[in-house]
């Protein structure tokens, strides 16, 4: 068995600054990046190199922490430390800021589109998660503010098929939310990490959720349908997810991001020890036993902390990563099995 991770391209995306996050558009042809230099850039492959196709006009006053493409691929949302979220859309040959979503008290840490494209979630250091509804006229309305976490909320993510929202926080927990009586409510609290949970990823089917943390572990969580009968306590609508696997001992510093490949099922991590790692599920892993093993480890993937990893949604095995060193690297992952 000889799995490999090779550099396809490396480019200095945010010189003089750090690159916080990258996001592929749904067709996997464009890569959006954001960073400490307050800019958002959109990259595309041109022949043998990657070129900056768009440099979005100045929309944010501070660091842009994360970006997310709408499922239709026409809009890009950006979350910034300036407490706003911007929705960008293409007008003619350029991107323009269409709407600014205000309301959070301080830094917005993450933004995510629901698969339907009609819902948007944001989270912030103000401990809240906001759910926004998008109508036909592209007007955004906040439909719910959930204050379930007790600390800074670091990440939000939608279930790939259902209207289920997950969030990760500085309070060491992951929480899941559903809509109930026109309001979004916390339906589950996943406890187990010993430090800040930095990021989350659902597997292609949505049955399992991966979380990564400052405690240097990745945990895989799975919905347990029998749980409600077992403890008998919660109401019928409560969700029950439990940790079925913990990847510990692989990372030497905080893990900032995790990404689950929709085609291959491989799990990639971005780590504060400058490394990128890919894990794959063992073949003898079954419904009762989940086993992931380290497939490839690139120790000096970047010269500083790796902040984000993102699998290309269409091209199997293509992975993008970005770092405090300001660069983006495009990798090709190949596995023998």
């Amino acid at each position, binding site marked *: 068995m000889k799995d490999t991770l090779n550099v396809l391209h490396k480019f200095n995306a945010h010189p003089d600054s750090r690159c916080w996050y990258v996001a592929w558009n749904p067709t996997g042809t464009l890569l959006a990046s954001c960073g400490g230099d307050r800019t958002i850039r959109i990259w595309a492959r041109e022949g043998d190199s990657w070129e900056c196709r768009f440099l979005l006009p100045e929309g944010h006053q*501070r660091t842009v922490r994360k970006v997310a493409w709408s499922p239709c691929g026409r809009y890009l949302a950006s979350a910034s*430390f300036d407490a706003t979220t911007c929705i960008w859309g293409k007008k003619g040959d350029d991107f323009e800021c269409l709407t600014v979503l205000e309301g959070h008290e*301080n830094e917005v840490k993450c933004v995510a589109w629901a698969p339907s494209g009609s819902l948007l979630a944001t989270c912030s*250091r103000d401990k809240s998660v906001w759910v926004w509804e998008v109508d036909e006229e592209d007007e955004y309305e906040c439909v719910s503010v959930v204050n379930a976490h007790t600390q*800074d909320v670091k990440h939000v993510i939608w279930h790939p098929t259902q209207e289920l929202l997950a969030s990760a926080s500085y309070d060491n927990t992951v929480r899941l939310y559903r809509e109930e009586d026109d309001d979004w409510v916390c339906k589950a609290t996943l406890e187990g990490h010993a430090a800040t949970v930095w990021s989350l990823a659902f597997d292609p089917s949505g049955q399992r959720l991966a979380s990564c943390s400052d405690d240097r572990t990745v945990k895989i969580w799975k919905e347990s349908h029998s749980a409600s009968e077992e403890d008998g306590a919660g109401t019928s609508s409560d969700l029950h997810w439990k940790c079925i696997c913990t990847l510990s001992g692989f990372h030497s510093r905080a893990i900032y991001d995790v990404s689950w490949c929709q085609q291959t099922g491989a799990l990639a991590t971005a780590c504060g*020890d400058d490394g990128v790692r890919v894990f794959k599920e063992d073949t003898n892993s079954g419904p009762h036993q989940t086993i992931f093993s380290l497939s490839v480890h690139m120790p000096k993937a970047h010269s*500083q*902390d790796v902040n984000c990893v993102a699998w290309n949604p269409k091209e199997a095995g293509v992975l993008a990563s970005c770092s405090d*060193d300001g660069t983006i690297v495009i990798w090709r992952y190949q596995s023998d099995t």
Partner: protein
Amino acid sequence: MSGGTHLDNANPVIYQRSGERVLTVEEEDEDIVDPIDDREIFVTLEDLNVVEQMRVNVDDQGSTVSVEFTPTIPHCSMATLIGLSIKVKLLRSLPNRFKIDVHITPGTHASEDAVNKQLADKERVAAALENSQLLEVVNQCLAAKI
């Protein structure tokens, strides 16, 4: 003494600089590699405008630096700010390859864990440094002594 109210620091203990003689430029051998060591980092931090006790641990090969500082008062609300200043000073003074950890000396501050967690969170540190009021205070701590 009748007139005094704040005499905490009227006659501070002066730590003598180590007797190690500093080589002048002329005496240096250009080809010898000087590894980055504890003392070098300590001297860098000594210039901070916050007088704190510190312990420094540097691993040049492994590219890690860890600093433990002891706030003068166990409840001092300035602890986070002092820690932040130390961290920023190190970020600005050390090569990018270094991983920097700043902690409170165990058992010396009431909310040790909370402060340590904040200092370790690079996202919050980054946000703090974009807050101009906070940055102003940190910069004042960092500004070279006249």
